[in-house]
């Protein structure tokens, strides 16, 4: 198809698609009039049944926890997939000593980070990691959870990179260890579910004590545990993803520093 023909066909099709959407939206109750019954039913049960005051976390890690297992393994598969897709690239880099012009251009484009900025960024690492940790362990009470906490934990390590300490980043993120952490997080989630089966309960049953009162950090049983495992999985997966894309740059820097 020529671009023009494609655009015409798309214009007609898009008009049709919009018409479909509008027809469908006509059948929705207006905005702000969510009719239920799923949401209200969960809101009614969540706190008495799970002792978690963060209802979204209760859904994510308990009522619809099985969805979240799938979701974690999507991230897991994506990280593994990136390792597959980029692996040969890495292997080639290590063999071929000749550099492409693109590398030379990129070399020039890595700006040296100034010392004050470097220090300032490194100072941020601690609090950021702490924030991530806090988020991952407070799913049951606050609008947070393993996923957000994991991403922020990962960004703590990304800050290390941004501060120019890419060698340190590499040292902090050996692929094997990260793979293992990721697998422990995702596999641990599945194992928590399996542990229920061993006890004769349904898969993913919330079998841990729920704590005495809702809204405390030790409340909500497996919700807190799963959120923590998800945090590990997500943090490791994101560091892996960033690491895979960084690899090339890092190798070059290692080589350059080796020379100097």
């Amino acid at each position: 198809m020529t671009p023009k023909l494609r655009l015409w066909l798309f214009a007609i099709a898009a008009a049709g698609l919009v018409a479909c959407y509008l027809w469908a939206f006509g059948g929705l109750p207006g905005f702000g009039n969510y009719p239920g019954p799923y949401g209200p039913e969960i809101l009614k049960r969540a706190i008495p049944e799970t002792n978690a005051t963060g209802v979204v976390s209760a859904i994510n890690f308990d009522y619809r926890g099985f969805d979240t297992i799938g979701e974690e393994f999507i991230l897991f598969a994506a990280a593994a997939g990136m390792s597959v897709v980029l692996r040969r690239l890495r292997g080639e880099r290590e063999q071929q000593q000749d550099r492409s012009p693109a590398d030379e251009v990129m070399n020039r484009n890595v700006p040296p980070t100034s010392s004050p900025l470097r220090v300032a960024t490194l100072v941020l690492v601690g609090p950021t990691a702490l924030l991530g940790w806090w988020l991952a362990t407070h799913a049951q009470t606050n609008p947070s959870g393993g996923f957000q906490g994991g991403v922020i934990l990962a960004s703590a390590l990304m800050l290390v990179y941004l501060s120019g300490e890419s060698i340190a980043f590499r040292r902090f993120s050996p692929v094997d260890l990260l793979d293992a952490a990721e697998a422990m997080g995702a596999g641990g989630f599945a194992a928590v579910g399996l542990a229920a089966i061993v006890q004769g309960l349904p898969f993913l049953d919330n079998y841990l004590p729920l704590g005495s009162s809702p809204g405390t950090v030790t409340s909500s049983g497996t919700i807190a545990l799963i959120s923590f495992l998800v945090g590990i999985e997500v943090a490791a997966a994101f560091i892996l993803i960033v690491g895979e894309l960084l690899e090339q740059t890092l190798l070059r820097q290692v080589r350059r520093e080796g020379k100097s």
Partner: protein
Amino acid sequence: MTSPAVMATLQVVVLVLVAAGAVLVVRTRERVRLVIALSVYGMLLAILFFVFQAPDVTLSELAVGAIALPLILLLAIAKVRKPE
């Protein structure tokens, strides 16, 4: 507590901004600017989710849409930059 009328106005404003943000992202063809546009769009979406009373999703969208994805994109762009 904000009154529903104030809330509704706020929601309309942010929705309009998001709609415009989508156009901004799609219209930006230069790669580095594209990443900035995407980051702004992620931020707008996060604000929208906040006014939709979804702090949980706000936090994820901020972490992913406004920070992590643009970072990954930047790294990928750095790798595919053509030799000049």
